[in-house]
Structure formats: structure tokens, C-alpha cells
């Protein structure tokens, strides 16, 4: 976390809001990953992956700014894997799902979220 962010009053409130939103995004991301793996329809699988991409894009943009740099970098990496897959580089499919699973586990294990989880 940069010292400039720490010195801004109100940052803690924003971080708490971010973590609340993260709970919702985690559920949506998990559901979208499940649909993209299990659905019979190619079109719906791709739609689900696009939803994953949008959630990860938002996380990549805001996480680092509110002080969760590793989360943001992980989200960016997963977003790029999905972009490559949707652009036709299907050989990376297994790696993509592996990284998405790892990312979700990392989100779940974030120390900042202990005692912070909200009901969704």
C-alpha cells in the first residue's frame, strides 16, 4: 500500500466497502466458472467466461488502488488468460481453469477478509 493511500482519510471505509463487494463478486465468479465448465451450450459457456472476464476486469482495476495489489495482479492475469482463450487460443484452456480455481482459493484465503464476510 502506498503511503499516499494510507494517509487519505476515509480509505478504511472504502476498503471495507471493497471487501463487501468482493463477497458478492466471489459468488458471481464462482457461479460463472461453474457454468462455463458444465454447460452443454458452447454459446452459454462463452457468455459465462465473458462474465468472469468482466468481474476480473473490475477487480484488476480497483484492487491495487485500495491496497490489495496481489489480488489485482492475480485478477489481471486471469483476465488475460480468458481473453486469449476467447480469442481462439484454446490450447490454454486447462491452464486457464487451473488459474481461475487458484485465484478463487486465494480470494477465499485473504487475511483481510477474516471476520469480514457478509451474507450474500
Amino acid at each position, binding site marked *: 500500500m*502506498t503511503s*499516499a*493511500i494510507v494517509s*487519505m*482519510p*476515509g*480509505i478504511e471505509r*472504502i476498503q471495507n*466497502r*471493497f471487501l463487501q*463487494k468482493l463477497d458478492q463478486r466471489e459468488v458471481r465468479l464462482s457461479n460463472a466458472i461453474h457454468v462455463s465448465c458444465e454447460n452443454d451450450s458452447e454459446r452459454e459457456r462463452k457468455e459465462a467466461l465473458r462474465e468472469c472476464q468482466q468481474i476480473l*476486469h*473490475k477487480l*484488476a*482495476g*480497483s*484492487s*491495487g*488502488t*485500495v491496497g490489495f*495489489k496481489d489480488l*489485482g495482479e492475480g485478477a*489481471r492475469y486471469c*483476465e*488475460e488468460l480468458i481473453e486469449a482463450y476467447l480469442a481462439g487460443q484454446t490450447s490454454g484452456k486447462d491452464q486457464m481453469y487451473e488459474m481461475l480455481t487458484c485465484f478463487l482459493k486465494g480470494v477465499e484465503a485473504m487475511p483481510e477478509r477474516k471476520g469480514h464476510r457478509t451474507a450474500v
Partner: protein
Amino acid sequence: MHLLAVDDDPIILELLVEFVQYLGNHTIETATCVTDALELVARENGEKFDCFLLDIQMPGTDGIELCKILRGRPDHKSTPILMLTAMSDKAYIDRAFGAGANDYVTKPFEIDELRGRIGLVDSLITQQLKEAGENQQSFGDAELNSEDTANEIKHPLYEPFKIHDVDGVIEHNALENYVSLLSQKQLFGSTVFAFCIRGIADLYKETSGFEYQCLITDVSEAIASSLEKNQFLVSYAGSGVFVCVVERGWQPDPCSITDRVNLTLHHMGLCFNDGKPMKASVSTGEMVRLVWKSGDKAIDALATAFESAERESSRFAQNLEDFWYARQSA
């Protein structure tokens, strides 16, 4: 300054509100979509916005479309617009500058960078207000856009100025921001070069303020038209020089592109206010690839292109009748 931030992520908007309050000398309003933003811009009784911070990727109408819409409004033709975007979206960045954005800030934000960019915008607005005040003092209530007034106001020869309503032509400081902020990797396929109007010093002396402005605008149209099948950005850098950045590994042949622009100018039939034909043609400088260049080195490349075009122009300035490079066979 009074800012409007538009982003579909409420966390980003909260952060920006907190940040502006932290800075202390600006105010901010927010919108989560383009529709709400345009309602705020169009309202009659609200405070006018001095600067826009626009996210690019939003559901429905995106930030680039909003940028175009704002630039189409007479009250926001020149209002500074900063795009908020992720570094990986270079294609979006290119489109945003083409739509009239002045600068961009990358997500995740570095607060110091955001502070610096807003500070630059603040200085720019202060300068614009000062110039507008000086013009108002000189011309009283006269409509500053009228031809008579424009004839009186003549931009100094060396000074860049904004060219309106030509696709792909952006402000010079926007082009500098574009190349200085892109990474080396993103600039690998980019080439910069410049055109210089031959005999510009003489043309400047012979033209009124309005005629000079028209000349520069017409030449920018000829250049944009000649480059239109490729991905490009052009800016007017002053002294009759137009700096161009082209993408995707394309490197035009200098002779061919010069002839193409000059042919277009010839067909446009430029003339002075009294109908007398105005002979305007350009020279092209060396092509500078932006491989392994970013930041200050990329800015240096712009300067190299600028100076190279001026040198070429000086070489041909004495021979205005002979503007074809390719020999014409019978």
C-alpha cells in the same frame, strides 16, 4: 475545478470522491453510466464541469462514445477529458485519443500519478482562462469565433493549436501523453514521422489569422485523408509541422506519402480570402520506429521526427513548383 467522474464501479467513484476531498481545492460529482452523466452535463442550473474522468469499459454506451458526445457539444469542445483505463487496453486507448481524450490514467491508480495529472489539467485550464480573458479584453463583446475576430487573432507561428473536427487529429499535448505513457511493449509496432509545410514562414506572413488557421486545418485534413486506411494519430506541433504516429508495423514510404498528401492538397484548391490560389505543399521527414523506446525516449523520437521534417522542408522550400518526388512519364 469542478470534475465529473463516470465509472460503473462504485468503489472507483468513492475513491475518486475521497481523493478530490483530500486534495482540497476541487469538487467532484459522479455518475455510474453514460445516461446519468449526460443528464448532469445537460442540466441548466448545475455547476459547469471543468474536467471529465471517464472509465472506458462500461456496460451499454462506453466511455469512448461519451468522449465523442462531449466533444460534439459546443460547451465541451475543449474541456479536458482524462480516460481511466487498464494498461492492457491499448486498442481502447488509441480509440479514446482519436475520440478527443487529452490524457489517460491507468488502473490501478497510483494516487501521486492521479494528483500529477489533475494538477496538469488545472494548469491548462488556468492558462486557457487567462488567454480567454486577454482576448475578451482586446475584443470586448465581439464574438470570438467570428471571421473578423479570427483574422485579428493570429496564433504565433511556433505555437501548436487545437484543430477541431478532423478525425484522427488530436492536440499536441495529448499525443505527447499518449507516447510517454505507453510501455515499450505497446509501442513496438509504432512509427513516428512528421510533415512540414514548405515555406511556412512566408505563408505565415502572407496570411491573415483566419487564413492561417484554415491552412493548418486543411493540411491536417489532407494528411488524415492520406493516412485513413491505417491506424494513426496526428497532431499539429506548431511551425507548420504535423507529427504522426502510425501503428501495426506500418512504415509508409516517405516519397509516396508526401506525393499523396500533396496531390490531395492540390485537389483541395486552397486559396486566400480574395480567391488567389494558395500554393501549399509538404515535405516528410525520416521514419522513426518506437522500438525499445518509451517515456522520455519516445518524446525524443517525436522531436527527432519534427526536426527531420523541418530540414526536409528547408531543402525543398526554394522549389515550390517541383513537388512531385516520382518522375512523371509521358
